[in-house]
């Protein structure tokens, strides 16, 4: 790649990980779907997450066909779409969030088609302007890096790669070649929200990845409790929790699928418990 290297892309992610390292603890990364269960409630959750202890926010871009997700996140995408969420509104929510918080990194996570349809160049420009720091696009492996990874780096946005138990030592360098921001280790072979990995396996996998990169390593898929988050925090640089948070949204809907009054508090209280778990672990 000419001129730009992945390492030279500076965003809030780098600063946040550096600050946490100085603090001697791991990050809590929380996933919620933008506009779940509706735009207004989703925005309140988003705005409340840093206060509840989320160090980094993964914001899901709803998609009709989330192939790598289990039932919980599939349903959250469906709720958001049913409530009329669009890509433009997702970016607007980031923009609104940034009027109050200019430090918490936001990573947009999702699938390529809505981005491709929006237009890659326009998307990168609009996302950067809105205050997005990184992208995780599940169906864009390094084989397809020219689609969005390279344009994103050029536009000053980190492109975060997933690695999996199936990513062997031979393949890892290829995956890490243009990785930046952090590396996301998918700790199980499966969809989101279904199974959890054993701590020893996660430990071994994180060590293996560290032999290949200096980037912070986040671990996700299957973390559902404050204890689970603490376990991961003791071996990795970040613990990612998604389905378990999204399930708090699901559990606080009325019969028509509308947000019950306490929904936002329930989600944020649970986030706080996760954050307490992560913060207990000192390094």
């Amino acid at each position, binding site marked *: 790649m000419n001129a730009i290297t992945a390492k030279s892309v500076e965003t809030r992610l780098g600063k946040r990980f550096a600050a946490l390292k100085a603090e001697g603890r791991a990050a809590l990364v929380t996933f919620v779907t933008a506009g779940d269960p509706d735009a207004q409630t989703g925005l309140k959750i988003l705005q409340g997450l840093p206060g509840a202890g989320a160090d980094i926010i993964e914001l899901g871009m*709803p*998609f*009709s*066909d989330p*192939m*790598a997700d*289990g039932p919980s996140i*599939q349903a959250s995408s469906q709720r958001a*779409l049913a409530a009329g969420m*669009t*890509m433009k509104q997702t970016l607007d929510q980031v923009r609104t969030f940034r009027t109050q918080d200019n430090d918490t990194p936001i990573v947009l996570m999702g*699938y*390529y*088609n*809505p*981005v*491709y*349809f*929006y237009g890659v160049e326009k998307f990168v420009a609009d996302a950067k302007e809105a205050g997005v720091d990184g992208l995780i696009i*599940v*169906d*864009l*492996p390094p*084989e*397809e890096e020219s689609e969005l990874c390279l344009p994103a780096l050029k536009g000053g946005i980190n492109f975060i*790669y*997933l*690695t*999996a*138990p*199936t*990513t*062997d030592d031979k*393949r890892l360098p290829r*995956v890490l070649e243009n990785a930046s921001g952090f590396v996301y280790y*998918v700790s199980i*072979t*499966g*969809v989101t929200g*279904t199974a959890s990995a054993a701590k020893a396996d996660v430990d071994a996998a994180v060590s293996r990845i560290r032999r290949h990169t200096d980037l912070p390593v986040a671990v996700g898929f299957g973390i559902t409790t404050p204890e689970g988050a603490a376990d991961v925090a003791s071996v990795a640089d970040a613990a990612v929790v998604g389905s378990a948070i999204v399930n708090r949204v699901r559990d606080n809907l009325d019969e028509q699928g509308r947000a019950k009054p306490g929904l936002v508090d329930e989600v944020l209280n649970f986030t706080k418990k996760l954050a307490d778990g992560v913060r207990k672990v000192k390094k």
Partner: protein
Amino acid sequence: MNKPNTFREGPDETGHFGIFGGQFVAETLMPLVHDVAEAYETAKNDPEFVKEKAYYLSQYVGRPSPLYLAQRLTDKLGGAKIYLKREDLNHTGAHKVNNTIGQILLAKRMGKTRIIAETGAGQHGVATATVCALFDIPCTIYMGTKDIERQAPNVFRMKMLGAEIKPVTVGSCSLKDAMNEAIRDWVSNVDTTYFLVGTAAGMHPFPMMVRDFQCVIGEEVREQIMEAEGRLPDTLVACIGGGSNAIGLFHPFLDDADVKIIGTEAAGKGLETGLHAASLTAGQPGVLHGNRMYLLQDEDGQIMEADSVSAGLDYPGIGPEHCWLHDIGRVEYVPVTDAEALDAFHTLTKLEGIIPALESSHAIAHAMKIAPDLPQDHIMVVNLSGRGDKDLNTVAATMGVEMGVNL
């Protein structure tokens, strides 16, 4: 756009046909997808594999399938001479088995112990369950509940063959969603499982591999028509779901400039109603199920539900090689409505004593549309991709007949 010297070279090493195709796959599956590609490269150059596949195609499937001159249909239309490539006479009743034989032999070579597949019409599910019975490998078939209902005979066949059927209740409850669920299963069972993709779409190498396995259709037609007519056909017609029966017929003829090639997509209740599956006519390039292809999508890049009376064509995308052939103009793609397909279904049944699959009826319908205006020495080959027994419930319903009650 520059015309290539040959239309038969694709895909490139990364699985692209022009801008279409590719490997848009989650990291967990990426190593497995590379494994399949490598194993296939080795297998296709291995004389043992080629021999074994040829054996099963002839002795088990019953190939070659006849190229039958549909004289009464030809007479009735009063124009082009219409030949039917009788894929409906294959064991299991459709072209799908050409592909499942190839892939099950590959899965065996790879040491896989469990097979998964997606199915719409159930023909691919039946063809998969069949080869899994033959080779004693357990299989799980994903099928949307809407399709389970309208293709009940095939569901029962799969059960008899020992397959586990997993009903898919999300989204449109049809082929697209069955594909999503199969991918989710594959991610969750990476060590044991082979994903036996049923059409010429999905992540590379599947569009290429499925095409290669289906090319036996077009290769036979070349020989058979030379024998019958002493020359190549003027027109080929085939229906398109994901595109496997069509690409199998078309590919061996792509470089024969004088052969006009037409693919028919399902126009459902009519393009103007929005209830259709005409991805080329009404879709835009997008990325789903591992590849870039024309896709039916809304103004925000969300995939739309397709609609067709035929479960096998009820898919919002179309295989990448067809997308490319469409863009460069080598193949013409035309929409055919439910009503036109049903009319063709009845016509062929009455005139020739052949009950075609509703999918294949879309190809016949277009042949019926254009044949009358063509000269009598015009040779047309229509791919009769499958037989229609599976569709009798659906057809009965369109006639207001309840099976077993008011026959």
